[in-house]
């Protein structure tokens, strides 16, 4: 391993086709580059990285991983939650760890502590091809980007023919799926109230899946923190007879006592939350008994190192961890490495519609998938590179801070 190396360049990449994403490349003086990624407000993340992070990080020893996490964390006021500063830190931490693993010629999972398992089971988040990808401005819960000519319009499928979708997933060996059929009713009252008729309509996909494939399929209900407490309880109780794999993000994640109150009233597990960041916020969640399954997103929680710390804390509470991915290909690769490493990994999220299309336009390869399981990626670091066609695309915007 090279000693007293220095970080010589920080590069951010953005692309108008993916207006929510920003990529981070960190290069050390031995010419090795590590990759990171984060999403939402990419221009602000970019501004923070070049104006606030780069003056600190350039010229530093790339091996001082924990130290850099602490110092970059102090550049902002974000002790908790995933603001611009925490997302920038997450992306930079990912790039630092990828760089570290590559400089040591090891796969990332090895640097994290090695393989705890040979493969990790996935669940399919039933998003369509452009869900959450190309929209700008305010999000519109429940809206559908419909591309009927493609086979994986999974959001349209769960809203219309969820039984057939479940069969299709099982054919590919995928035995767990996530859907959000109640989002469509949020807009009317901003989540303040849901009628009994709407609840019944929202339950329909669960009925169809159970009718079509029985208990062969695990079904997770994603609630996207859109509802007030009584509405969230009403929805969850209606789904309870179908034994969902979990209820995810039933309420906003800024009041863990409310979340704990929700969980106390449920018989099925509560998953939370990729909306939560840092060991400090998760500590509170664990202590207040806010959830059963620890979900985090590596590119928001504080990076791969913070994800590992949070997962280890979860283990101390006998709780499993399930890395989020509905974000980007680099985040998915980091998540797979962590899911293969951490002793308490539960399931790895993936979106087959993304894997088959735009993820593969950005990176050269994803981890191999077999019968609904991801296998260990080959190669150093995260084990993938940007596609040459992506890097040479004339619409790609590069910003560089260098020594």
């Amino acid at each position, binding site marked *: 391993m090279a000693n007293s190396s220095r970080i010589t360049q920080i590069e951010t990449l953005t692309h108008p086709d993916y207006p929510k994403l920003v990529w981070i490349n960190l290069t050390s003086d031995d010419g090795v580059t590590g990759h990171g990624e984060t999403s939402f407000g990419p221009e602000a993340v970019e501004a923070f990285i070049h104006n*606030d992070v780069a003056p600190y990080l350039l010229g530093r020893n790339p091996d001082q991983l924990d130290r850099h996490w602490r110092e970059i964390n102090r550049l902002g006021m974000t002790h908790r939650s995933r603001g611009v500063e925490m997302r920038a830190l997450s992306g930079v931490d990912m790039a630092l760890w990828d760089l570290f693993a590559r400089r040591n010629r090891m796969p990332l999972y090895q640097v994290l502590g090695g393989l705890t398992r040979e493969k990790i089971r996935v669940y399919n988040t039933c998003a369509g091809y452009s869900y959450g990808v190309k929209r700008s401005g305010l999000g519109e819960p429940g809206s559908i980007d419909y591309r009927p000519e493609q086979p994986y319009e999974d959001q349209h499928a769960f809203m219309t023919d969820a039984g057939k979708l479940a069969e299709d997933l099982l054919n590919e060996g995928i035995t767990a799926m996530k859907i959000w059929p109640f989002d469509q009713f949020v807009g009317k009252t901003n989540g303040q109230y849901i009628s009994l008729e709407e609840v019944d309509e929202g339950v329909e996909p669960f009925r169809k899946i159970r009718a079509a494939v029985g208990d062969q399929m695990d079904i997770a209900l994603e609630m996207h923190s859109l509802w007030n407490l009584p509405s969230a309880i009403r929805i969850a109780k209606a789904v309870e007879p179908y034994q969902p794999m979990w209820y995810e993000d039933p309420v906003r994640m800024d009041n863990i006592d409310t979340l704990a109150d929700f969980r106390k009233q449920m018989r099925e597990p509560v998953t939370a939350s990729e909306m939560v960041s840092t060991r400090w916020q998760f500590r509170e969640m664990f202590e207040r008994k806010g959830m059963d399954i620890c979900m985090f997103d590596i590119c928001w929680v504080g990076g791969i190192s913070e994800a590992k710390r949070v997962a280890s804390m979860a283990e101390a509470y006998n709780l499993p961890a399930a890395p989020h991915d509905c974000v980007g290909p680099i985040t998915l690769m980091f998540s797979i490495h962590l899911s293969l490493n951490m002793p308490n990994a539960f399931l790895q999220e993936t979106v087959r519609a993304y894997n088959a299309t735009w993820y593969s336009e950005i990176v050269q390869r994803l981890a191999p998938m077999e019968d609904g399981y991801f296998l260990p990626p080959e190669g150093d670091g995260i084990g993938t590179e940007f596609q040459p066609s992506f890097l040479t695309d004339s619409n790609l915007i590069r910003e560089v801070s260098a020594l």
Partner: protein
Amino acid sequence: MKITSIDTILNSEYPGLIWVQIHTDKGITGLGETAFGVEAVEALIHHEMAPYLIGKDPLHIDAHWTNLRNSTRADLTPSAEMRAISAIDVALWDIFGQETGQPIHQLLGGPSRERVMIYNTCAGYRHGVRRSEAGEDYTASSGDTVLNLSGNIGQVGDEGPYEDMRAFLNNADDLAESLLSEGITAMKIWPFDQFYEESDGQRISLENLKKGLEPFDKIRKRVGNKIQIAAEMNSLWSTPAILRIAHALEDYDLMWIEDAIPMNNMDALADFRSKVNIPICASETIATREAFREMFERRATDICMLDVTWCGGISEAKKIATMAESYKLPAAPHDCTGPVTLMAGVHLAINLPNAFIQETVRAYNSGWYPTIVDRMPDIEFGEVAAPTEPGLGMALRPEVFTDPRTTLRKSDAKTIA
């Protein structure tokens, strides 16, 4: 009324500050401000928020707050998103006040008092958001270190008589007399910050503890209990280190001890509070009702400190302070930030039934604040008077726009199309 355009204004002399102007089709312009990570805030306002706000009625203040909070997923912490929302919210209240011809404190429920007591945060002229001058002699003490390690170190320079940080580190007794001679009866100092770097805040030696106590000794010896003293800790210390400091400070009858530990664990802060016989003050480093709710419920603070331009704006500050009131806790608006933040804090402190005291920095008020804005709060003999003009009652001076160091960026119907 409709929002027609939004300006962000940066000036390289104040690299930690950003101003926001919201223009309307009625010719009314609202002013807002926030601090730190200003390029990120600027990017958020133009890319994430202006496309939503332009064309909207500026007076639907609660709806705009909720929608911007939801769309940016901001919570609990003064992230760039929450700071951008705060600046916008202040500007919307300024518009509301100008439209109705009322000062903001009147719209919040009217004055609970005609004047409110101030304390002086003993910073020098270049502390905080202002540019450091290269080659100048830094003190070892790092003001708001937790906020910005790289460029935010309080500095020794001679711009006038109020180098108050140098004064509290060297001759705190003279400083206390100087403040009392101006009618100021409360002061805030942070003499322990200088020892933090030795162990990254993990421990403090008995020797350094004694050195840190010197200013408190000197003040009490010279002026007795005539002046109230607040000890600012800037969230730099581990719990055992801060307990050692706090227990030593118990002998000085402090007004409060502020931001004892990082504000990311309210159980730890509540534990600290249960072991210390000094009122606890916290914290301008958290944001939104939800974060303050947790702090109140865990019994982690005695005094609710908030920064209007970080916690979510005037709307959120009022709601937080009202929650504090229901826990019988006083609120104290922060300012070591900028002139708009001070003015917004004053409107709140005049209105809030449970206002305790308003923070001010005399070095700023007599120095660079008046070069930025056309009207300052009326501060006299240790008190600030209720503003009388509509809205905030201040605007950016024309010189801000002609200054060559100023960058103005505008979003309007054309740029967002």
